[in-house]
């Protein structure tokens, strides 16, 4: 599509400056997909507004011209959420990176949506505070993107996902209207649109500002790494810890393939290659509490006969214990030209069952799968390594993904714990929710965006057939 002649483009260039409206094929290339490369679509243009006013102007203008728009943060999403259908515009928040206000006494901060997650914790560290949600992509992904996907991370087992840390959001609706959703005091009147926004995948409103909750840095932190002969044994240890009423902040498992990948990469951290799985447990809180709780966790782990058990109480040792887990995503990305990182949830008592099923599926498709998971939340992330240039492999991987997600549902789980539905899982949503419930979700969408201008065809299965339009391989499993 040649954008040069479009009237709205001229208006955007005039208001935002030519430099901030991208249309050349080379510039648009990196906006063709997010971190899920199974789907691709080149936008007509990418706009880079500097502030909320420019976002409101852009949305109002595009709305008037009937042009669809998708907000985008860092593009690290893993469900195809930040793609726009052909002819549409991507609104990138990368120029909106200000941490506008830090209120140490009230433990909250006001940020623009393009602020990178990890930067907020760094900016408030001198006050003894931190921002708790810690997705593994935190050094790159944006807080706006985190809200849109209701991002989680290892620490979310105890502290909850992004939604629990958003006090209020300033948003721009599809027609350019600005509103504040949420309140700075505990609760206010009217529907909890702040809560609805979290996980809405950029399809209800563009986030232009966020009041986020900050938490005190704990007095003491202890990390333990236990190696077990099998994933099932690691899962049994997780169940034991949870059932004993212990409340660690994180419970993370890596299987043998993930360990191998880490140990063969620059993230090598001395993980035991012979282990079937490693379990990382972290306890935090005040001194006495952590001493007592970590002793109980350690006793519980020992009772499960680990192959190896290590403990870190000082920051250097703890960082070393986490190094492998933190680098695992990157290490796995190097195993093959493409990787497909899945996201599903089961009740945590069903972890062993779902992992057995993943193994069966792996055998069936004949492609390697590595597993990293937030075991405390029952949130699994099988990583398939494949070559996307081979359409057969891509189709196989997608089919395998769908099978695993269906099994998650069968075990009482959910299609997504933190990556969202995006384009990837639309076709499965009617297995999780009844037709009536989906219709009501659709009505909510229509209420806030009646013309379906904002990130259309995402999240809900109502644009059935639309995912195929983005499909790199012509719609393998969809």
């Amino acid at each position, binding site marked *: 599509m040649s954008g040069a002649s479009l009237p709205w483009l001229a208006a955007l260039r005039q208001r935002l400056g030519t430099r901030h409206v991208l249309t050349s094929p080379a510039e648009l290339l990196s906006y063709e997909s997010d971190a899920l490369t199974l789907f691709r679509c080149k936008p007509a243009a990418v706009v880079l507004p500097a502030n909320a006013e420019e976002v409101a102007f852009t949305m109002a203008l595009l709305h008037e011209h009937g042009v669809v728009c998708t907000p985008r943060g860092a593009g690290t999403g893993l469900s195809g959420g930040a793609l726009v259908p052909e002819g549409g515009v991507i609104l990138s928040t990368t120029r909106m990176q200000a941490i506008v206000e830090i209120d140490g006494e009230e433990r909250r901060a006001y940020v623009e949506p393009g602020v990178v997650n990890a930067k907020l914790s760094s900016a408030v560290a001198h006050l003894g505070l931190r921002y708790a949600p810690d997705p593994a992509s935190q050094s790159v992904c944006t807080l706006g993107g985190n809200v849109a996907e209701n991002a989680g991370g290892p620490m979310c087992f105890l502290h909850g996902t992004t939604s629990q840390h958003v006090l209020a959001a300033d948003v721009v609706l599809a027609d350019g209207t600005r509103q504040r959703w949420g309140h700075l005091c505990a609760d206010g009147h009217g529907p909890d649109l702040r809560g*609805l926004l979290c996980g809405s995948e950029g399809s*209800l409103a563009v986030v232009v*500002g966020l009041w986020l909750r900050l938490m005190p840095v704990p007095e003491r932190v202890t990390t333990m790494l236990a190696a077990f002969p099998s994933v099932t044994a690691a899962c049994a240890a997780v169940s034991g810890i949870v059932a004993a009423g212990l*409340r660690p902040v994180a419970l993370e498992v890596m299987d043998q393939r993930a360990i191998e990948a880490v140990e063969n990469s620059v993230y090598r951290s001395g993980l035991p290659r012979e282990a079937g799985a490693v379990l990382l447990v972290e306890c935090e809180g005040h001194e006495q509490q952590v001493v007592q709780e970590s002793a109980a966790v350690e006793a519980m782990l020992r009772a499960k006969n680990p192959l190896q058990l290590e403990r870190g109480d000082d920051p250097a040792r703890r960082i070393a214990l986490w190094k492998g887990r933190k680098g695992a995503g990157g290490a796995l990305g190097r195993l093959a030209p493409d990787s497909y990182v899945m996201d599903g949830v089961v009740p945590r008592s069903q972890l062993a069952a779902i992992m057995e099923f993943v193994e069966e599926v792996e055998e069936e498709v004949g492609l390697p799968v590595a597993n990293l998971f937030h075991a405390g*939340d029952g949130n699994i992330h099988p990583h398939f390594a494949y070559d996307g240039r081979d359409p057969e492999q891509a189709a196989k991987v997608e089919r395998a993904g769908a099978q695993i997600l269906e099994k998650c549902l069968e075990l009482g789980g959910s299609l997504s714990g933190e990556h969202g539905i995006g384009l990837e899982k639309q076709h499965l949503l009617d297995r999780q*929710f009844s037709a009536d419930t989906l219709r009501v979700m659709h009505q909510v969408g229509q209420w*806030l965006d009646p013309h379906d201008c904002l990130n259309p065809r995402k999240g809900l299965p109502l644009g059935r057939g639309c995912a195929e339009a983005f499909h790199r391989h012509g719609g393998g499993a969809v």
Partner: protein
Amino acid sequence: MNAVLSTHDIQKESELPALLRETSQDQQRLWPCGRQSRIHRVFHHEPQAEHIVSTAGLQNIHWLDREDQTCEVDVGLSPLALQQELAPLGLELGVDSPSHEAGTLGGLFLSREVNFLHQAYGHAREQVLGMRAYLADGTQVQTGSRVVKSVAGYDLTRLLLGSEGRLAVVTRLTLRLHPRPKSLDWRRMPTASWPDLRQSLPTPRYAFQLAHQQGLFVAWPSPLPQAAARWPQLDSAQGEAARLELLHAFAECPQRVAYSRRPRILNTGTFDWNSLQQPWTESERLPSHDSEAQMIPPRQVPPSWAALRRALAPQAPHFGPQDD
């Protein structure tokens, strides 16, 4: 004022769709409620609607998974009854409130009840993973899921929470549960000022003040943080009995303040600021909506309950309280 034409004590969910369809056809107001304890407290009158539907008779625990720390319960159960089921399993609901005995779980989560455990487990709404609800036109909606983490479709649970019966009749709740601390350490701090305490001590589980008693009541799960032991204290107590005694005193005290991030005044009617040792600074009082509004220039007022209800069930515009 609407004259009450009918009162329905629902005993089975299956009675609801037909009843809802019937009343919405007549364009009459229907007010879903539990035992009405909070309605009386907040609205100071009987529910004003042609049709009152009480879900207090729905009392089942459909399942309770100890290992997953989740359960699905009917809304008519009282919070106290659920806590009594959970205690022997070493679990608890992440909400503690003054209306635990009189009210229902539906009333607790569908209104904006205070949560004493806000500091330990967050807002009451964070404890709800999913719901079963019937819209004004009788449509059954099942929101959320039974797992503790889910991002799938729009989070309709958030819209129903706090709606006070304006959107739907909710019949079931899927709840997140928590390990119950083995023991609580209570302290009464004499001249404690909340900001100082909050800055220098790990977050307590409870913190509140009663007008007729000197000092600030705080509690941590045992073991007590060392820093707390260093604070001067008037009194100390341990365990569940102390909790019950203090919470009862709290419920009965007309001049009381619960502290979360900022003090929360629970009863402003007879509140006498000067009778207390002003434990907060002026700037820490609840912000007026004006000061919040100054942060961001032109904005429109967010949509109301009425607008949302019209979007969800356009043919049945009268539901719940009239104040939206």
